[in-house]
């Protein structure tokens, strides 16, 4: 792999940019691998990268039924934050946040991590109580999160209307300054390139159709649209399709898959400095570096694999955005789309061993896993390499739905991001 640098750009500028290599190789699958990762989204690619980098396992294939990053990784609104309520969540999401910091350097790829601040608005007494509880819980866990008065909030984010006559008055806000956004595609591409450089085979257009097991129950490989591929260990990192894949191995999951939608506006000059979200009004917004407003909507009420959602869902979100920011009322929306998100009963992910020997699962990130991509890949690689979870993901088991040790972020947050 040729290193990307300012010198490389200068050199290529002189040569008409004819010397750039392919960012990753696209080999035919080998007969068998030490580890197969199913799903080349950010989490799957990061898992492969850290397996190679930190655990010296490089005989790995990442199998993807479509194109890499074409699942939820390429469809999300890229909000990054770690201000979750419970200790276990703070540990996991903050682990990821710390990795975002040096990620562009580590991957030699600009993932455009932009810690521009994530602000959560309080509109009523109940919001104030909930958000302050979060601020205090976060601080106890070493996650900086500040409580702002309406005036301080407006100073940080001038487009806010803090007048008393606003449709949804702002009575305070919580601000995680290190939260922000990153470029979703670049995260997938950066991990793919760095993993490929360490010998990982990324095999696209290769759909897994069955998980094969030996007579003692241990996994032996997968059937795919490119034939049988053997593996000693298999990691399922397939987001919305996790139930389908796990069922191939006889494991029924505590998951439901719903369409989640987002939309972007026409690009305009910089006008919105940070990420603002409101749990009560159920909307959030940020502006991409390209200038588009990026707006996240909710999920449909029924399970679906259609990758589209109901129009009334995004309509509802735009109503809320226009009420909160009347200055956006005349913006034209360019595109809207849906992704299929896998939701657990407690809205926390599952990163764990499974009842099937050699089979591991990383799922349940639901509406908010992009932010966790580096941390998730990091601890999941540890789990696969050692056949034992990392202390950070040890609580995120599959068994918690039997023992009752839930990590109930469902009760702690309302809006999908």
């Amino acid at each position, binding site marked *: 792999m040729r290193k990307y640098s300012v010198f490389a750009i200068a050199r290529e500028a002189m040569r008409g940019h004819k010397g750039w290599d392919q960012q990753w190789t696209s080999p035919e699958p080998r007969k068998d691998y030490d580890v197969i990762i199913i799903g080349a989204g950010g989490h799957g690619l990061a898992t492969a990268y850290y397996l190679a980098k930190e655990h010296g396992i490089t005989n790995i294939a990442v199998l993807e039924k479509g194109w890499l990053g074409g699942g939820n990784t390429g469809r999300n609104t890229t909000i990054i934050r770690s201000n979750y309520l419970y200790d276990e969540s703070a540990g996991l999401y903050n682990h990821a946040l710390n990795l975002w910091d040096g990620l562009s350097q580590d991957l030699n790829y600009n993932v455009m991590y932009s810690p521009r601040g994530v602000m959560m608005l309080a509109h009523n007494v109940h919001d104030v109580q909930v958000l302050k509880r979060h601020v205090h819980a976060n601080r106890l866990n070493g996650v900086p999160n500040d409580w702002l008065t309406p005036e301080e909030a407006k100073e940080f984010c001038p487009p806010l209307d803090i007048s008393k006559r606003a449709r949804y008055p702002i009575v305070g806000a919580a601000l995680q300054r290190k939260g922000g956004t990153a470029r979703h595609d670049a995260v997938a591409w950066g991990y793919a390139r760095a993993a490929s450089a360490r010998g990982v085979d990324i095999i696209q257009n290769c*759909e897994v*159709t*069955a*998980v*094969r*097991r030996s007579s003692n129950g241990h996994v032996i490989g997968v*059937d795919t649209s490119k034939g*049988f591929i053997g593996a000693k260990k298999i990691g399922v990192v397939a987001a919305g*399709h996790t*139930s*389908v894949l796990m*069922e*191939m*191995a*006889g494991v*029924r*999951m*505590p*998951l*439901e*898959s719903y369409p989640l939608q987002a939309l972007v506006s026409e690009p305009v000059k910089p006008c919105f400095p940070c990420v603002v979200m409101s749990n009560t009004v159920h909307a959030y917004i940020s502006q991409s570096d390209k200038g588009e407003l990026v707006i996240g909507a909710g999920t449909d*009420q*029924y*399970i*679906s*694999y*259609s990758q589209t959602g*109901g*129009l*009334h869902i995004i309509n509802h979100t735009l109503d809320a955005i226009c009420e909160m920011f009347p200055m956006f009322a005349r913006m034209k929306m360019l595109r809207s789309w849906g992704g299929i998100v896998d939701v657990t*009963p407690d809205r926390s992910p599952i990163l764990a061993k499974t009842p099937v020997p050699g089979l591991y699962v990383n799922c349940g990130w639901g509406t908010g896993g992009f932010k966790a991509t580096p941390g998730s890949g990091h601890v999941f690689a540890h789990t696969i390499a050692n056949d034992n979870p990392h202390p950070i993901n040890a609580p995120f088991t599959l068994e918690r*739905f*039997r*023992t*009752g040790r839930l990590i109930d972020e469902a009760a702690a947050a309302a809006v999908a991001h």
Partner: protein
Amino acid sequence: MLLIHCPYCQEERPELEFRNGGEAHIARSRDIAAESDEAFEAFFFIRTNPKGLVYERWRHIHGCGRFFNAVRDSVTDKFLRVYKAGEPKPADVMKNLPEHSAWENIPPADQNVETPARDRVSTDGEA
């Protein structure tokens, strides 16, 4: 937005009048405290979540207010059947289903045998 036929009102109405009630045909235990942890987990948390035929409950909250069941294709979101609560799970819906993928709605037992996927046939209507 879905258009949903309520089997009580005998009318097709917009989705906004309905509330989805999750997977259908999950029987609640008569003595829940006596259930094992495994049985409770299966009842309360584990879901089929199929790509293909979904058997689900709907409630016509802004209409007659009653619960009913539906069979829907979770890939196209098309309804194949609606039927009243208490009626048995229809077993014949599978026949008219378009093919989506090699594995959808194939019982796990069939998938785990060491035969190539294409040699396996399944006519099971379970979802």
